[in-house]
């Protein structure tokens, strides 16, 4: 997802950045409420929040900050986080990483050495946390990436976590969905110049074959500049698969879908989370994209009560539906708060140990357990485009 989200966010954010200026919002320290009966007030705990608040990723930054602010407001109203009989005021320090690696390392340094945060939420991009992760690791501060789906992220060290699923899981989730939907044969067209696309394809094939399905045709193309997929699609058509897996960039998918339909391929498509972009349906044409399913981190239509509560709170506060960025930032923050509650000692080390053994935490996108490699074990939502080009929630897929 790393590449896809970056591309999408870059694109979205430039437009926003041009019309409106920086969305930077100063952090407001939570004022401790008057003490309730029998409660002790602990020292103020600081949590850093790193996101692109200006520059090409500003839209993502806005969603991330909004997701965290929802928790901040709630904590402020309650007077802090209750751990045992002690209420700890929580202060969030928001920092702008401009979606750049070098700025991320700078703000990580500032948060750790100057603000003395106990944990960091974000950033949202794999490349940024890969650059700054070693700083948190050597200082012994927990960092929870939000949308950092690249496998290498948590391999930086035992203080680095993430709130999202990893790329290989997406491929498996897509395979599981396709199999459960009753498809027995699948074809794949993927971009062999893109690690995201290739990774999803390999895991899809592995999982689909394991389940008993058969991948009847695999076609590749070399890079995003290619616009003609007729040759590959002709071969896929000849193989006559029941479903076609297209784990590609949102700029490539529309043309692939269009050309496939024009060639007479009627099989439904399944894609990865890169398809979660409003442009896809419009560019592909609603009649072509209808019935196309994709893996997503979260759907606001998820009927789960915890999800619905979050969606409602987000809507009440900001007048819009949360996207994956918002929900992942929200969940990363809750993971940290839960770890503070469970920690043997409330310090950086204690929080790390508590987070590493986090289990069955019920969050909007599903129940989450932190695995041995610090990758969360969590479900994915399958969404499907309807005839009006609007993605609708289909089902949750659990690992």
């Amino acid at each position: 997802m790393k590449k896809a989200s970056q591309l999408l966010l870059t694109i979205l954010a430039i437009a926003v950045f041009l019309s409106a200026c920086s969305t930077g919002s100063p952090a407001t320290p939570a004022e401790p409420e008057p003490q309730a009966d029998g409660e002790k007030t602990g020292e103020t705990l600081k949590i850093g929040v790193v996101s692109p608040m200006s520059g090409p990723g500003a839209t993502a930054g806005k969603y991330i900050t909004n997701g965290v602010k929802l928790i901040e407001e709630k904590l402020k109203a309650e007077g802090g986080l209750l751990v045992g009989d002690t209420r700890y005021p929580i202060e969030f320090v928001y920092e702008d990483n401009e979606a750049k690696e070098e700025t991320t390392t700078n703000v990580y340094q500032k948060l750790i050495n100057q603000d003395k945060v106990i944990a960091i939420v974000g950033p949202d991009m794999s490349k940024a946390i890969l650059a700054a992760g070693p700083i948190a690791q050597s200082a012994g501060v927990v960092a929870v990436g939000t949308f950092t789906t690249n496998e290498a992220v948590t391999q930086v060290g035992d203080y680095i976590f993430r709130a999202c699923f990893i790329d290989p899981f997406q491929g498996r989730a897509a395979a599981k969905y396709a199999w459960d939907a009753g498809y027995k044969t699948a074809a794949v067209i993927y971009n062999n110049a893109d690690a995201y696309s290739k990774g999803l394809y390999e895991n899809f094939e592995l999982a689909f074959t394991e389940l008993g399905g058969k991948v009847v045709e695999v076609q590749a193309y070399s890079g995003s500049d290619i616009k003609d997929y007729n040759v590959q699609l002709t071969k896929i058509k000849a193989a006559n698969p029941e479903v076609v897996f297209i784990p590609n960039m949102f700029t490539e998918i529309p043309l692939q879908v269009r050309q496939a339909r024009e060639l007479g391929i009627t099989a439904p498509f399944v894609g990865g989370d890169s398809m979660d972009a409003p442009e896809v349906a419009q560019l592909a044409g609603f009649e072509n994209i209808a019935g196309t399913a994709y893996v997503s981190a979260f759907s606001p239509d998820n009927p789960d009560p915890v999800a619905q509560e979050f969606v409602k709170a987000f809507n009440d506060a900001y007048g819009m539906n949360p996207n994956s960025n918002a929900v992942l930032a929200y969940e990363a923050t809750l993971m940290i708060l839960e770890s503070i509650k469970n920690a043997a000692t409330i310090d950086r080390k204690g929080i790390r140990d508590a987070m590493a053994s986090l289990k069955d935490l019920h969050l909007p996108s599903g129940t989450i357990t932190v695995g041995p490699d610090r990758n969360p074990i969590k479900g994915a939502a399958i969404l499907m485009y309807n005839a009006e080009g609007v993605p609708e929630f289909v089902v949750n897929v659990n690992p």
Partner: protein
Amino acid sequence: MTTFFQLLIYGIQLGSVYALLALGYTMVYGIVGMINFAHGDFLMIGALSTVFLTTAFTNTTGTLSVLQVIAIILIAMIGTGLVGVIVEAVAYKPLRDRPRMTALITAVGVSMFLQNFPRALPFIGPNPRPFPRLFPLIQYNIGGVTITSTQLIMLVLSLLLMIILYYVVNKTPLGAQMRAVSMDKDAALLMGININIIISMTFFIGAALASSSGIFYASIYPQVDVYMGGWLGTKSFIAAVLGGIGDIRGAMLGGFILGISEIFATSINSNLGYMIGFIVLILILLFKPAGLLGKFSIEKV
């Protein structure tokens, strides 16, 4: 056999886009002696302006008549042609007597400007947008080979444009002047040819052709964004070199060869297809270093 013809159709379709674009490279190179790396971006301007023109026309009537489609294409071509003239006047003309490297680097700069300036405009932006359907889409099935009306119209129009260009260059006074400037700029000047006008005309025609190839390209691959010209420009430049840069027939031939070999190579192995397309280029250049129809000229120092 059916597959062969089907692939051939795809190859010709892709090749005609390369060919139209390669014409602009080759004309500018032949006449001014510079490589206009911003040429691919004229394609983008043509396609993008067509999107806006179509919106403007559709608002008044609802649907597009044949006349309106022709008007849209002509306006887009003339508009892009004028952009070409302006680019030449602003960026290349002051450098005409400087070393070639200067103009080459400037062309790269112009290309970046043409991509990033529209991107920065709020009403254009970097997002890809759908391209309207200008030509009707009817699928014909001839002995198992599918061909669409869009492909046919495109092919006919691009061949028509190439024939017109060939006629203009070889049979008209303007063409004679262009060929004269191409042969010897100073002698042409002495013969009373207005070099500035000829060079402007060259850029106008080249950019207009690029614009038409943009419209055709976006008609088959209906998705337009500000960066679309970059890679296509490179491919067409390769096509121009392949055919022998400076030669108009060479550009057409090179475009079709590149398009067809790319499609067939992809069919043989989709993983290696792209690479095989370039191997064809290298092989041709190994045996004919000046391109298929190119003539070697000795550089005067």
